[in-house]
């Protein structure tokens, strides 16, 4: 019985200077074909100037069950934001 080719995550750089952004995934037997499939699947309309493919199995993701302990501690640290500080309106460029 045949089985699916491995899954690859696809990242596209929309234009020079921007980061590659995740756009989706493709199946392919190896990296070279993954790149070709990614090109044909995700950049048919000049969506990008550069492509990355990464084996999906290589991605380590945080556990959704841990979202609380992972991300909530940032919630009460509002002093990390510039708006926390009251600077009079007549003081400019700050």
């Amino acid at each position, binding site marked *: 019985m045949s089985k699916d080719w491995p899954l690859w995550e696809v990242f596209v*750089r929309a234009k*020079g*200077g*921007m*980061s590659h952004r995740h756009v989706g995934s493709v199946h392919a037997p190896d990296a070279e074909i993954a790149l070709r499939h990614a090109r044909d699947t995700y950049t048919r309309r000049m969506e990008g100037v*550069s492509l990355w493919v990464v084996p999906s199995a290589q991605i380590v993701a945080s556990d959704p069950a841990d979202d609380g302990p992972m991300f909530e501690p940032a919630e009460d*640290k509002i*002093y*990390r*934001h*510039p708006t*926390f*500080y*009251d*600077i*009079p309106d*007549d*003081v*400019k*460029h*700050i």
Partner: protein
Amino acid sequence: MYTTEMQKTAQVVSAEDPEKLAAFEARVAADEFIEPKDWMPEAYRRTLTRQISQHAHSEIVGMLPEGNWITRAPSLRRKAILLAKVQDEAGHGLYLYSAAETLGTSREEMIEALHSGKAKYSTIFNYPTLIWADIGAIGWLVDGAAIMNQVPLQRTSYGPYARAMVRVCKEESFHQRQGYEIMMHLAAGTPEQKRMAQDALDRWWWPSLMMFGPTDDNSPNTAQSMRWRIKRDTNDELRQKFVDITKPQADAIGLTVPDPDLRWNEEKGGHDFGAVDWEEFYAVVRGEGPVARERMKARREAWESNAWVREAAVAHAEKRAAREAA
């Protein structure tokens, strides 16, 4: 935080493929971004590696003068803020080291260059933080000067550096505002508190102006760096802008900029200001800053005395890998 190009000798043009070089120059002149896998002249790679790694070192060493006050911050609020700021500086150092690594120099090599004294970092961090008000002055002036330099670097020609700058600039705004807020409160406080704020401004003003680097006529690399869009404004342009913006901020809280020659020049639409003591600047660049030795000693001790943490992490990873393999 930030650093400036401190190498005084002009660039040596090496033998590059003229066709590739011309194509590269044209891309940069058209404001295109250069990415790690693109062809680039060796001198561009070298200059950027030096500039980005110096910038990273500045963020890391910049934690020391402020870290000095975390345990002595005057309230829990100030302590939490200062901790968050120092934590951000560590983050900025990491973004920048990562950007520099894309040019082919390893993290280890860069850290080694810092600890051996071979690499430079911003002169500003070789001045001591003597009183609490210095924390206010650093946020307001030092981070203010850094922002002025970093905002145009968001459009620098090397993609990974430009993207790191976007992140840094977004985070930097709180740094300056918390510093100004400290100064504002001290200046509106008791006469003794106001005196402390003024004392901090007196000591940090000139070193802050030096952060923009030597004058344009003493900055032989500026022309090349601007042509390559590694730099987008000259040192003197940025310094002028800083003075023009900062002087009214000092006035607004009743503090006096320690420069008797500082006055508005209607004709040029900017301030005239006194001469920077460049002897002092070059002495600090040479490593003769008031606390230069202390800074490097603290860095090396932190690196060495915490080596066991890095070793334990590796041992743990190896043990887990071995278990999984079994």
